[in-house]
């Protein structure tokens, strides 16, 4: 690194290699993120967010985490982390794989040092044997009157913080990939219906795929004790009208097709009726609580379903219905139907309740960045474990002899972050050598 150069790019490089900037950025990101939890966000509370002052909305405070300037902060942190890592990688490499044995006594760490006296040749042998036994990688040097070594154990620990830092960059890249190439949407459909994937409601991105989704069944299953087991949807994927895949999904058990994931998110009861009128049979599907209605052709009679009970809850399926006339506020007719029952509606048509028909609400998502995110998570965790629980131990030593027979072995250990462990490692080594 050219330290004294003052060219523009060098100065920029130096600014970005500073940890002060990095910590400042982290602090700013934390602060801004906190602000976002105090101001209503469009993603979570659209109504409240729209009530926030116009200036704040324009500046992006109501969709803070997707603003350009928030991304910019993350981007700067990534650059910072990359520059720091690039700067440190060579040093780490040397400290890990290119250790140099000491060439004089003074190079042995002073703080943790021990001296052993004995016979030269056996000591030399014993040192090598013990280093191997205790799992050290070592390098030897044999100069005229100085035999020396340097050894390292758990050397991958040196890479821990570097891996941790780069994992953060990986995470941000994963998120970026997802937001560029992915989409997110939602649809609610009744069992038996088919829907082109292009026609779902999107909240993010665009859909380039062209297949259709057919909902074969949608079910709200309860446990014997009355608690909800789960919502189940059986669906098929149709490419040009041909079924190419099919599966049952439920909450926490999504279904994936060509990188697009379907999540069970919602459920609503519905029912299947037949309206018989002037010799014609019209199929009718209604969702409960009047979420949709049926207007008999040529009349001003409106039919809605209020509650629908599946056969699993109470033995037999049942539906309560109401008929409204024109703009009247009170129903002109209402009642309950059991499966297969037929009634007359205002002398105009015959209504048969055929059975229940579940409506399933599915979240649809394509996020090609997710694998990268999980990779980043694994690196983050692995890096942390290496940095904290796999700390390298370096010991070095020299063996000198005055007369070629007696030897003076001086060993020292480079202290890591936990000094107690260093001392212990040194003592272990020495006691094994002298045994």
């Amino acid at each position, binding site marked *: 690194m050219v330290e004294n150069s003052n060219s523009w790019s060098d100065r920029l490089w130096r600014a970005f290699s500073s*940890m002060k900037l*990095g*910590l400042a950025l*982290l*602090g700013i*990101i*934390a602060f801004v*993120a*906190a602000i*976002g*939890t*105090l101001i*209503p*966000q469009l*993603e*979570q*509370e659209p109504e409240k967010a729209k009530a926030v002052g116009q200036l704040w909305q324009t500046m992006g405070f109501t969709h803070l*985490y997707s603003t350009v300037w928030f991304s910019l902060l993350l981007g700067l942190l990534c650059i910072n982390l990359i520059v720091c890592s690039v700067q440190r990688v060579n040093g780490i490499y040397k400290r890990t794989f290119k250790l140099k044995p000491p060439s004089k006594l003074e190079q042995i760490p002073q703080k943790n040092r021990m001296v052993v006296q004995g016979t030269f040749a056996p000591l030399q042998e014993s040192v090598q044997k013990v280093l191997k036994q205790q799992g050290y990688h070592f390098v030897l040097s044999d100069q005229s009157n100085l035999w020396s070594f340097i050894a390292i154990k758990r050397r991958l620990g040196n890479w821990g913080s570097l891996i941790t830092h780069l994992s953060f960059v990986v995470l941000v890249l994963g*998120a970026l990939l997802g937001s560029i190439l992915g989409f*997110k949407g939602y649809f609610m459909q009744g069992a038996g219906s088919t829907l082109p994937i292009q026609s779902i409601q999107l909240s993010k991105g665009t859909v380039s795929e062209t297949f259709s989704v057919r909902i074969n069944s949608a079910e709200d299953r309860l446990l014997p004790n009355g*608690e*909800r*087991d*789960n*919502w189940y949807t059986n669906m098929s994927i149709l490419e040009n009208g041909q079924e190419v895949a099919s599966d049952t999904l*439920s*909450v*926490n*058990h*999504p279904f994936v097709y060509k990188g697009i*994931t379907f*999540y*069970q*998110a919602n459920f609503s009861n519905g029912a299947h009726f037949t309206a018989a009128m002037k010799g014609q049979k019209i199929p009718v599907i209604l969702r409960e609580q009047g979420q949709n209605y049926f207007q008999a052709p040529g009349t001003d009679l409106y039919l809605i379903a209020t509650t629908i009970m599946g056969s699993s809850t109470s033995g037999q399926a049942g539906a309560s219905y109401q008929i409204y006339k024109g703009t009247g506020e009170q129903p002109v007719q209402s009642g309950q139907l059991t499966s297969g029952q037929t009634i007359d509606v205002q002398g105009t048509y015959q209504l048969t309740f055929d059975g229940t028909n579940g409506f399933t609400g599915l*979240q*649809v*998502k394509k*996020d090609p960045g*997710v694998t990268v*995110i*999980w990779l980043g*998570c694994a690196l*983050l*965790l692995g890096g*942390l*474990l290496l940095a*904290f629980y796999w700390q390298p131990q370096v010991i070095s030593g020299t063996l000198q002899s005055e007369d070629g027979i007696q030897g003076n072995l001086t060993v020292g250990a480079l202290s890591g*972050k*936990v000094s107690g462990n260093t001392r212990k490692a040194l003592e272990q080594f020495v006691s094994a050598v002298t045994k």
Partner: protein
Amino acid sequence: MLENLEVTMFYCLVMASTLGMLLYWIWIGSKHEFVGRLATYVTIIALLANTSAIILRMIISGHAPLSNGYEFILTFIWGIMAVYLFAEVRYKLRSLGAFVMPIPFLLLMFIIMSMGPQERIAQAIPPALKSQWLTFHVVTAMLAYGAFATSFGIGIMYLMKWSREQKAEKFQSQGIVSRFPALDILDELSYKVVKFAFPLLTLCIITGAIWADYAWGTYWSWDPKETWSLITWIIYAGYLHARSMYGWRGKRAAWMAVFGFVAVLFTFFGVNYLLPGLHSYAQ
């Protein structure tokens, strides 16, 4: 039957942990070895009662203890007492009890004062919460938060001892802080505890993300609870860096450990009770 036993265990926990706290206080003032030992034993009893209460609750409800605030707080307290007792035994640091045990005490008082019986009983959990990842999520949170509470206690001890030592030149006696370990030992311990907790907090956030991705297809949605756990994470990352790079040890590190835990508490309570959010099932 089991329900009654569970409630009994809860009150055993309340009594034992309150008594434990008082005994640690008496011990630190009186220096009776017997009182100190009693404090430890009573706290162990509190932990056992807590364990039984949680296990009984899991048997009754048939799922991990995460259906409501009551269950969350019980696991939080378990984490605090377990990590604390480990630290006490491992590092012979009984005086820490006087500073950590008030936290479970206050949490239990919070349950007693603010949650009626209806809020405490086992509830059915929505399908979205039926996931093994969530169990990992809760276990890691419990241990990480317990450890952060412990480092908070150590931080308070450090700050007390430090300010006493500043004044000690004027007044001869040091009072109770003379029973505390030396400042640099406290500092090192706090660091060790944070080092234990940080990867766990990381794992907690990751398992939460994995679960959220399974449940509704978004690994990160910036809801307030997630955001605050990230902020907590950044504070502790700051602690680790400031320490190794700028030698921010001692007083500054102690303050950061205290602030970090305030962020933990905010993630836990502030988000549920002061801010709205997706994690609303926890309300």
